[in-house]
Each structure stands twice: as C-alpha cells, then as structure tokens.
C-alpha cells in the first residue's frame, strides 16, 4: 500500500511543481468589480455577490446534513449522564456572551476584513455546543416550529433576495449595486443565526422535541 501512496504523492507533487510560477488569477477581475459589490473584502464579495449561488447551496448542504442526521432516528445514549461540574458551568456562563459578541464582530468585519457569515456562524455554533453540554434544554414550545423556522431562515432570506432581483428585471442573485451592501448584511445576519443553530443542532444529533 505504501509504495502506491508514495507514487501518488510523487505524481501530485510533480503536477503542482510543473504549474506556472506566476499566474494572473481572478484577483484582477474581482478588483475591477469590487466597487459594485457593496463590500470591500474581496472574499466576501466573491462569496455573497459574484458567486452567491455557492453560499446559497452550501447553506442547503448544511440543512441536508441536518435532515440526514434527523432521519437516522434516535441515537443510542452515548453520553454518560453526569453532572457537568462547576468549572464547565461557570465557563459557559462567561463564554457564551463573549462568543455571541465575537460572532457579531466577525459578521460586521466581514464587509471589509477576513470574517463573515460562516465564521460568525461557527462561533455561534460553538456557543450552542457549550450551552448544550451544560444544560441543553430548549424552552418549552421552542423546539418544534420556532427552531425549524430559524433553521431555514437563512436560505429563505437568500432566496427571497434572489427572487426580488428577478422581479426587478435583474438576473437571479444579482443585487442592485446601490443596495448591495445592505442586502448582503441582511442575508449575512440571518444566515449567521441559521448556521449557528444548524451546527449546534447537528451536535445534538437527534431531532429536538418539546419533551427533551
């Protein structure tokens, strides 16, 4: 097995080394259109404007994974039901507000610096995981419909904005340059909440019910 893998590594290494040293990639094309995108961070511009369907479909992938996990039914109890202990409890109380703040900062910074909806959503998801580890109970009545609405809100907002562009005579997912910044921010805020919730619910591993 090892010789085969080494041969593959050598082949791949040779392929990479034979690529041209200097390449004019797409950064020029992105920089030319950056003004119209509504944000100043090129990666965010690509993610939410130029290649918006990437982001839309990856949020669908997240939801599909959640549906897949839910469709497997109840998981066998793998966690031993023990008290989470004072250290984790106090740490969670301190960390969850900080994590929410960090998520909000990352979301806002995404317009002009590295950051954005997925990074912020991942931080929110981490806060959710901590919260599940310590108490992990949803308020009665929140588990079914409100949770599902929050989970699909990101995709729904994105689709609504995309469809609105169609209505005003533009292409799907093409924003009017004047409002692009605020539209991207709106999509990102709602998507962040949806992504964070999806990640935390994935960690839960089962479909939450009111009884839990």
């Amino acid at each position: 097995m090892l010789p085969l893998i080494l041969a593959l590594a050598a082949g791949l290494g040779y392929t990479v080394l034979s690529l041209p040293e200097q390449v004019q990639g797409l950064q020029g094309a992105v920089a030319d259109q950056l003004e119209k995108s509504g944000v100043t961070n090129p990666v965010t511009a690509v993610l939410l404007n130029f290649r918006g369907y990437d982001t839309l479909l990856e949020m669908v992938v997240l939801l599909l994974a959640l549906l897949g996990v839910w469709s497997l039914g109840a998981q066998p109890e793998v966690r031993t039901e023990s008290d989470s202990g004072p250290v984790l409890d106090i740490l969670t109380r301190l960390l969850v507000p900080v994590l929410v703040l960090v998520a909000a900062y990352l979301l806002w910074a995404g317009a002009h610096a590295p950051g954005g909806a997925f990074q912020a959503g991942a931080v929110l998801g981490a806060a959710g995981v901590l919260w599940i580890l310590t108490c992990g109970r949803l308020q009665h009545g929140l588990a079914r419909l409100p949770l599902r609405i929050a989970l699909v809100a990101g995709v729904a907002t994105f689709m609504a904005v995309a469809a609105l562009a169609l209505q005003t005579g533009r292409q799907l997912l093409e924003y009017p340059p004047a409002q692009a910044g605020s539209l991207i921010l709106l999509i990102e805020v709602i998507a962040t909440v949806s992504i964070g919730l999806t990640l935390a619910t994935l960690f839960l591993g089962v479909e939450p019910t009111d009884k839990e």
Partner: protein
Amino acid sequence: MSIPFLYALVGIGLFCLGLHALIVHDHLLRKILAINVMGSGVFLVLVALARRGGDSPPDPVPHAMVITGIVVAVSATALALSLMLKVKAATGRAELPDKDGG
C-alpha cells in the same frame, strides 16, 4: 521554489497521509478523521496556489471555494459521525463488517 509551492507540497503530503490512514485503519472514527485530514490538504493546496500572483493580493475565488468546502466538510463529518454511532449500535463495533464475516 517559492513559498506557495512549499505550502502546496505540504498540502499534498497531508492528502496522502490521510488517504493512507483511510485505507489501513478499520475504525470508522479514524476513517472520518482521515477524510478530514485529506480535505485539509486539498484546502491548503487551493489556498497556497491562490498566492501565485507575486506581490499582488491573493486570488479571492479559491479562498471563497475553500470556505464553501469547509462548510461541506463539516456537514459531511456530522452526518458520518451519526452514521458511525448507528453502526456501533447495530453491530457493537465501530467498524465496517468484513466481507465474509458479515
């Protein structure tokens, strides 16, 4: 050899390391981790090769693709871990059954 190529070669190394672990290990958790290491290698190659423009800023399109890829990898990993727990519950072992043993 410039720095981007060095990183790209490290990415290829990670990919092959993960592929080897994916093949030789029986435990499903190790296989899932191996696939994640392979994915990290691919991401490293993409991010590194985006930096080939000399002094100009890196190409943002591969960077955006890597973010997309990370999200897909996380989703797939979560689903795979759930499936692994199901296999463990059904067979008592977190391994795929042998071809002959069933």
